[in-house]
């Protein structure tokens, strides 16, 4: 597959960006491109600009509420830059434009999206502070100031082939969108335009994993073909007999149930609305039946679970005075819970160990009793112990006197009998061990049966259950404190708790629906299969339908082959991606021993187990999730050969010191063939890394210097990046500090060391001007 490179991005009057800003990207063999900006200056909107240009879609922050800093993000931002619209005279036009230049193989593409807005009288509203703010309206999903109208929306894709002197508008496709679909499909955009938010929540949904693996591996093409063969080619046309017509109708009916489509192939929906995170979002409804409905339910379970995680975070973040004592209690109880969790897990392990080791003995109790009885009888008749029988024979031969008091002369028939008896004992000595075994079973097991059961089973079970109960009690107390903390937050806290309860019930309901839907699909598929077999038989017996029956058999075979091919490819791609993700993740983590194993199951559920076997994938910290997503994205490139560039927003925004050092050391050698651009803040790039009490030797060298230094790090013994970094800096108009809507520009920049005095010493990204 041809390598795709971003050559440049030009932004004009898009959201924060005032005027025209152009960034040139360097190819990977020359180094990295770093775009530096402080919070709120427009890093994420840079990603939005690229997405908007390519797909008319903005993944980041649309619908955001107020941020931590108190500023509003895109929900209150028009798509057109505020300063630009303010400077545009009434009755004239403001232009918003994003132009992305890409190279795929030897062909260069210029992809330009332009929006022209005609300004009339802008309507405003007065804020409590006295300032006036424009009222915003949505027109076809585009947010503009009320009083403006969209004059023109243009999307042009031009291409310049190798050797051609200029660009030509593409005529190959009736829609330029199709051209972009061919170059970089939108479904894949989230895997190369990596938004920090997306990476943080990546592992909370199996959908991301499924799409990543299936779309990038192009497996959906095979599944689409198999699906088409199954739905269209393996059902015969009607008209042979009433029986076959009826059976064909029956099969089509099952297909409609499985695919949730009506007779005309139109999708069927129920009247049950799907879950909405934003109440303003327009309603969408569950498919009526089958696999699409199952997919809807899965999507909703993911959405609801993610909202539950957000609610927990929001409850935790509620900043209310007088909560210190509660928070202290919470922290103490939390530590106790962690300790109890370890203990009950260990007790559980001991209990299982005993069940496996001593369970068979318990099940063999009757056999052991029978065995002891057989041994006892053998002893009673003098058959055991063998060594006594041997001693007896020896003593007879030594005394030369038989038990009947007759003499045992050498060569005498009587003597021969005694010797024969003695020889017969050879090889039987081990029967004495069996006698000992029986004795041991009797003394230590049968006679102490109750003690055995108590020691091996009842006591460990009780210990395990007691610890589990203690853990649950503490966990409940913990939940109680959490509720108190959130209740202390007044109405906001209470409504969060209420929402949490409602959503927990919602998840239960959705899981029940899911189970029922799975059963319905299974039953429909089984009935379809049974009907198909009857139909095949009926067609074979019908002389007019023999040719059709033969064709159907061929299509059936093809479908089976496609299914086998799909399953084997899926397994092989999944296994490779699992292995590579795990290797990449371990290389990125400062403390790889924290997790023991990583697997992606055939249903794309992910297991990242700690040493106690607990799956932690849904409890990853933001930093761990970011690292893991980078590891996954790197892994899906390998087997699929998809050579797309990566633009990563805040790659280490929420990563701790040791991991920040590690990522700074690893990133330059990571994905050696991928064009890489990073959108970073000072905190993650130029600031010294905070010292870590657990790793005192950790250097405080900032990431920018880990990238471009030579030599080897004394702490981790890895070589420094030794790469060139091309810097760009987002500059915000200093006069508009209070206005997060901003007037930002992007300028070419460089890394500089500042050494004004002891308190003003360090690295910074400064513009070249």
């Amino acid at each position, binding site marked *: 597959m041809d390598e795709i490179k971003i050559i440049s991005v030009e932004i004009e009057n898009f959201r924060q960006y005032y005027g025209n800003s152009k960034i040139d990207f360097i190819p990977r063999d020359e180094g990295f491109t770093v775009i530096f900006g402080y919070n709120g200056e427009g890093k994420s909107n840079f990603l939005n600009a690229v997405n908007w240009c390519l797909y008319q879609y903005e993944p980041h922050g649309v619908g955001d509420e107020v941020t931590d800093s108190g500023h509003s993000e895109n929900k209150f931002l028009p798509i057109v830059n505020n300063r630009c619209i303010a400077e545009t005279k009434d009755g004239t036009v403001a232009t918003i434009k994003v132009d992305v230049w890409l190279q795929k193989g030897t062909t260069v593409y210029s992809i330009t999206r332009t929006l022209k807005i005609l300004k009339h009288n802008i309507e405003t509203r007065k804020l409590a502070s006295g300032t006036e703010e424009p009222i915003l309206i949505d027109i076809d999903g585009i947010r503009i100031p009320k009083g403006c109208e969209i004059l023109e929306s243009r999307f042009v894709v031009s291409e310049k082939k190798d050797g051609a002197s200029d660009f030509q508008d593409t005529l190959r496709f009736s829609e330029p969108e199709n051209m972009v679909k061919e170059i970089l499909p939108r479904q894949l955009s989230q895997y190369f335009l990596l938004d920090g938010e997306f990476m943080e929540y990546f592992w909370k949904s199996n959908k991301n994993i499924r799409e990543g693996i299936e779309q990038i591996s192009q497996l959906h093409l095979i599944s689409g073909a198999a699906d088409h063969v199954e739905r269209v080619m393996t059902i015969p046309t009607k008209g042979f007999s009433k029986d076959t017509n009826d059976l064909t109708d029956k099969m089509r009916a099952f297909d409609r149930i499985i695919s949730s489509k009506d007779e005309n192939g139109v999708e069927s929906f129920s009247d049950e609305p799907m879950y909405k995170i934003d109440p303003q979002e327009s309603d969408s409804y569950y498919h009526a039946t089958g696999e699409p409905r199952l997919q809807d339910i899965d999507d909703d379970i993911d959405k609801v679970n993610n909202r539950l995680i957000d609610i927990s975070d929001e409850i935790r973040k509620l900043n209310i005075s007088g909560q210190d004592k509660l928070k202290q209690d919470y922290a103490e109880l939390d530590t106790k819970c962690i300790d109890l969790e370890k203990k009950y897990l260990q007790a559980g392990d001991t209990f299982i160990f005993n069940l*496996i080791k001593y369970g068979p003995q318990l099940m063999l109790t009757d056999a052991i009793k029978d065995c002891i009885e057989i041994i006892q009888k053998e002893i009673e008749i003098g058959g055991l112990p063998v060594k006594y029988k041997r001693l007896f024979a020896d003593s007879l031969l030594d005394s030369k006197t038989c038990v009947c008091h007759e003499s045992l002369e050498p060569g005498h028939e009587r003597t021969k009998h005694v010797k024969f008896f003695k020889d017969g004992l050879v090889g039987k000595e081990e029967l004495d061990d069996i006698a000992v075994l029986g004795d041991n079973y009797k003394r230590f097991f049968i006679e102490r049966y109750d003690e055995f059961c108590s020691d091996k*089973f009842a006591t460990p079970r009780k210990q395990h259950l007691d610890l589990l109960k203690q853990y649950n009690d503490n966990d409940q107390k913990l939940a109680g404190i959490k509720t108190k903390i959130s209740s202390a937050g007044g109405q906001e806290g209470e409504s969060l708790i209420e929402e949490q309860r409602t959503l927990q019930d919602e998840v239960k309901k959705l899981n029940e629906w899911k189970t029922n839907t799975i059963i319905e699909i299974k039953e429909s598929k089984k009935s379809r299969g049974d009907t198909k077999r009857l139909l095949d038989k009926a067609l074979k017996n019908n002389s007019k339908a023999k040719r059709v029956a033969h064709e159907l058999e061929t299509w059936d075979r093809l479908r089976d082959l496609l299914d086998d091919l799909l399953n084997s490819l899926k397994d092989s791609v999944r296994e490779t991606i699992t292995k590579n993700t795990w290797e990449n993740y371990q290389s990125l983590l400062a403390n790889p021993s924290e997790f023991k194993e990583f697997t992606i199951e055939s249903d794309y559920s992910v297991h990242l187990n700690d040493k106690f076997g607990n799956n932690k994938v849904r409890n990853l910290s933001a930093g761990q999730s970011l690292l893991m997503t980078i590891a996954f994205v790197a892994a899906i490139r390998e087997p699929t050969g998809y050579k797309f560039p990566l633009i990563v927003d805040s790659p280490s925004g929420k990563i701790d010191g040791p991991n920040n050092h590690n990522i700074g050391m690893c990133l330059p050698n990571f994905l050696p063939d991928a064009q890489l651009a990073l959108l970073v803040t000072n905190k993650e790039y130029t600031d010294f890394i905070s010292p870590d009490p657990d790793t005192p030797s950790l250097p405080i060298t900032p990431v920018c210097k880990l990238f471009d230094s030579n030599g080897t790090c004394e702490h981790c013994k890895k070589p420094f990046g030794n790469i060139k970094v091309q810097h760009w800096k987002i500059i915000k108009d200093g006069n508009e500090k209070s206005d997060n809507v901003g007037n930002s520009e992007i300028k070419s920049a460089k890394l500089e060391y500042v050494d004004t005095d002891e308190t003003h010493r360090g690295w910074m990204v400064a513009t070249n001007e």
Partner: protein
Amino acid sequence: MSNFDIDFPQWINYGNSNKEIASQMEELITKQWSPFNGQKMANVFIFCMAYGFAKGKKPEKPPGSGSMPGSAFDSEMRNHMKCVSICEKKDLEVAINANETVKICEGYAYAGFPEVYDKIANCDSKILPQTRIETLIKEISS
């Protein structure tokens, strides 16, 4: 070392050449829901042998040849095997013949395996692994 241990077969057959059994055995020792997760196949074997014998299953000769190392069976396991073989033959001498003893036990383990797997694997996912195995033991011993 006793002659029984010297003669103990190098490889024990649990029915590896039956692909269904092989994959189910793999599941039992690798899946989180299984109490045998992380255990040796020998543990599963002994458990199935005891279950199969205690339930009065008809021993079945497993297909193929041995695939589990004999060294994985410790003295306690071997004693349980001797016990089963004595009860089967109602004769003590079978217990000093390692090959004969193993053959009898292979038959019971193979006969008991499908039911053990079914009862462990096909139950409500909320049921803990320890409860799954405990239920099987209680079924026999209570």
